[in-house]
């Protein structure tokens, strides 16, 4: 039995002792060891590690709810957590939205999931070497990235993360699991032109610093001396790194069950809102050779499972925690509770845009992602976009987003890259960009990518779209 599940059980017992048997309680225990080696100007300039165990308690008592957390996991710290959470629950206003506890349920099994845990039933694929990676192993990959850039200035990070977690509630649900992941994200710089390469993996050994550095450098070299283009609607090929941004915004603002319930989302279940070639799945347990590092249960103890959000262009589902599911009249949570889901809404954290059929040539310049090459070869006039940056929602209902391109844009004419282009500002409705008839192609290979800020992961192929609304360029 893991230390985390023992801690969770101890807190459940303390709740029973201090609040009585009528109290409903959920306990999450997370032990996280995070290490990140950061480089800039082609040298390691920040190198950090931490190992923390946190305990989070949500308590529902006499119709009132309160949440508390602590990193003080000794006897006194845990007792203090329970005492102050009980005290808070007793005086807070009533909570008419409480949706009750998850009943005991077994975790779902997926051969693609790299998590494990002695008592989780998920003992496959977990990579101890990643969980115990040293700063030296991360530095080796940084060295390889820097060397492969061939003298260009480089910046980025290599990180490894180990998570061992447990959940227990007073209704008898008790689950545990652990997972490990590694990521590398870096740029090469060439006289103001940047090129990027990034990858997420469940094994550090799957990260090839030299390959990533070479790709970033090839992009930076191909991006030198950019021209500027006027605003207008352009046909585009988005590389996987850019497509991840679309998935992120769909995730947070579109498929969020609370936004949907409150009619602030574009999503309309059963309606053909996307091109028929589009299928989007939330895959917390991974599938089809795309392992998805993460825990096999959510913060309410609901077992994680695959959820089809869009199938062949038709919006099929949004994600729920227990509260939003109850508000929506849905039968059950989809397993997307998080510490913030009650206030911010539950959103998918493992979105995958289904790859398209294989086809066309994969040959092409090293600066172009493999799954984008066939689309570039057939584009008459348009833009190849590597990355999107600082995207923000202007209108939540139509999901109109503004942001900029970054890390490489090129003008494509008659199937050839003709000129690098300076960064561009766009203002574009994302659902409209992927609407019926607007998707000209989906790449045959998905790439697993880390989120730039939160803990989400995205599996994205390249996308060929009929139109993208450019509203300016970065120089004005």
């Amino acid at each position, binding site marked *: 039995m893991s230390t985390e599940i023992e801690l969770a059980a101890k807190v459940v017992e303390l709740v029973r002792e201090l609040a009585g048997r009528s109290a409903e309680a959920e306990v999450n225990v997370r032990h996280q060891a995070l290490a990140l080696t950061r480089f800039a100007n082609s040298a390691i300039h920040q190198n950090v590690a931490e190992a923390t165990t946190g305990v989070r308690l949500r308590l529902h008592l006499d119709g009132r709810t309160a949440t508390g957390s602590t990193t003080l996991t000794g006897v006194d710290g845990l007792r203090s957590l329970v005492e102050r959470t009980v005290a808070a629950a007793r005086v807070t206003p009533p909570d008419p939205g409480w949706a009750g506890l998850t009943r005991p349920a077994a975790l779902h099994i997926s051969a693609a999931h790299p998590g494990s845990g002695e008592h989780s039933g998920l003992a496959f694929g977990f990579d101890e070497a990643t969980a115990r990676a040293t700063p030296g192993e991360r530095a080796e990959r940084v060295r390889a990235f820097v060397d492969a850039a061939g003298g260009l200035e480089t910046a980025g990070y290599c990180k490894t993360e180990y998570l061992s977690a447990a959940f227990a509630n007073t209704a008898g649900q008790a689950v545990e699991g652990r997972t490990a992941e590694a990521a590398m994200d870096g740029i090469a710089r060439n006289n103001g032109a940047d090129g990027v390469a990034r990858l997420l993996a469940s094994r550090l050994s799957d990260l090839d610093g030299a390959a990533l550095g070479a790709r970033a450098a090839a992009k930076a070299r191909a991006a030198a001396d950019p021209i500027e283009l006027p605003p207008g609607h352009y046909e585009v090929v988005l590389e996987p790194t850019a497509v991840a941004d679309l998935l992120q915004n769909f995730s947070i603002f579109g498929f969020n069950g609370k936004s949907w319930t409150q009619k602030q989302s574009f999503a309309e279940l059963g309606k053909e809102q996307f091109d028929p070639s589009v299928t989007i799945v939330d895959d917390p347990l991974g599938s089809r050779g795309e392992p998805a590092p993460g825990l096999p249960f959510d913060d309410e103890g609901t077992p994680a499972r695959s959820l089809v959000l869009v199938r062949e262009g038709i919006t099929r589902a949004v994600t729920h925690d227990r509260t939003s599911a109850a508000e929506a009249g849905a039968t059950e949570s989809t397993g997307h509770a998080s510490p913030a889901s009650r206030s911010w809404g539950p959103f998918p954290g493992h979105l995958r845009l289904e790859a398209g059929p294989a086809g066309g040539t994969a040959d092409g310049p090293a600066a172009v992602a493999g799954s984008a090459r066939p689309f570039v070869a057939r584009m008459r006039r348009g833009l190849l976009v590597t990355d999107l940056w600082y995207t923000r929602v202007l209108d939540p209902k139509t999901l109109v987003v*503004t942001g900029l391109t970054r890390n490489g844009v090129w003008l494509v004419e008659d199937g050839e890259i003709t000129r690098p282009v300076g960064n561009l500002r766009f203002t574009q409705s994302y659902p409209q960009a992927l609407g019926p008839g607007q998707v000209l192609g989906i790449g045959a290979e998905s790439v697993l990518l880390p989120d730039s800020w939160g803990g989400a992961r995205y599996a994205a192929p390249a996308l060929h779209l009929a139109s993208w609304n450019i509203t300016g360029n970065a120089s004005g």
Partner: protein
Amino acid sequence: MSHFDEAGAAVQAALDAGARYADARVMVCRTESMTARNGAVEDLGSDESAGLGVRALVGSSWGFYAVPDLSEPAARAAGRRAAEIAAASAQVAGPPAELTTSTPVTASWASDCKVDPLTVPLADKGDLLVRATAAAKAAGADQAEASYAIWDTHKWFVSSEGHRVDQHIRECGGGVSAIAIGDGEVQRRSLPGQYGTRGWELIDELDLVGNAPRLAEEARELLTAPLCPAGETTLILGGSQLALQIHESVGHAIELDRILGWEAAFAGTSWLDLTRLGSLRYGSDLMNITIDPTFPGALGSFGFDDEGTPAVKRHAVRDGIWVGVLAGRDSAAVAGLDYAGSVRSDGWSRLPMVRMTNVGLEPGPHTLDEIIAATDDGVFMDVNRSWSIDDRRLNFQFGCEIGYEIKNGRRGRMLRNPTYTGIGPKFWQSMDMLSAETVAWGTPNCGKGQPGQIGHTGHPAAPARFTGVRVGVRG
């Protein structure tokens, strides 16, 4: 209870393991937050966290390690581990790392706080949010949200140079929003969320309940208001929006770590070139930007930064000329500057880095009414709705919750979905009127760094006028 001993043990262990400089921070943090929706409490959280983070410089390379354990053996182990990580950094080493001179101090500092927010009864706090959201709902909001957040942080800092500084920083803030949902349209009106290094008196001053009905009415009116016209015009910004304009297009641009390329891969760089410090025209003569962690009650206020440097006010832009940066001891040394003082972390488990303190615009001679009266044709916008700026901090596009037409010196029709866009220095050079009505706005959600950190920054700002600005960008 003091934690200097544990911090000192970590520092000594790092030195024993080969570090030529080390510092450590013990932090004990309590936070509390509550949200309410439509007349009911939605979420109430109370969090406690304690730990130690130690930074070690071995040769020319840094290492950082953090543990949630405040025992001396754990502190010593953390110090050794930080030195080991620093040694690994040397595999891909940079140029020699130096630190600017810092006089060791032994000092204590605490932020002002009239009403300790953690002692206000939870029932009273919940009642306030419930009443505010109920009032907005009753006035026509389809969704009404209100929230508050409280941060109570004790820090003990020790360096191998002899610093021993403890601080107690209390911050709080909150707001209320009304959302109206129409046919394919969602409109939000908010009391701009306001935060500061202050006590519960800040929340009382916001009058969440009293403002809620007006916000609901404005949100409903926005559903059918005309769209903000597209084109180039005179733009008047309210103080709350101008605060974010300062944050994004000045505050981040003057961060020295960005200028030096240390944030290039993630947060980006800066358009500013150190060779032009002291001569570059950033804005009009009206533009005076200060870096001022001593500003009373603002969200970026402190007594000492997380390297032990005392809080000092200095100019970043004087009479429109760029004259200063936000710096840390290592970045300042690289740049050849003789000051630091802008390094902070968001907790014991994160590496301190260059962060905005209070970056604000000094007041001008006018009032907002005078600015409007002096404007024949333009648009007024306020309260941020969306924000986006490029990785060099030049090209920005902001959306605001609300706009008004300005015609012949008067405020006219309400305008829906107002946006404006521009290039930083061109925009600031077009500022031709500035109000004296300064408010120190707080931004509690500034993201930077990897692993990610959430910074708290303050932005004293007053309404101002800008000419020739492109507005009404649409998708």
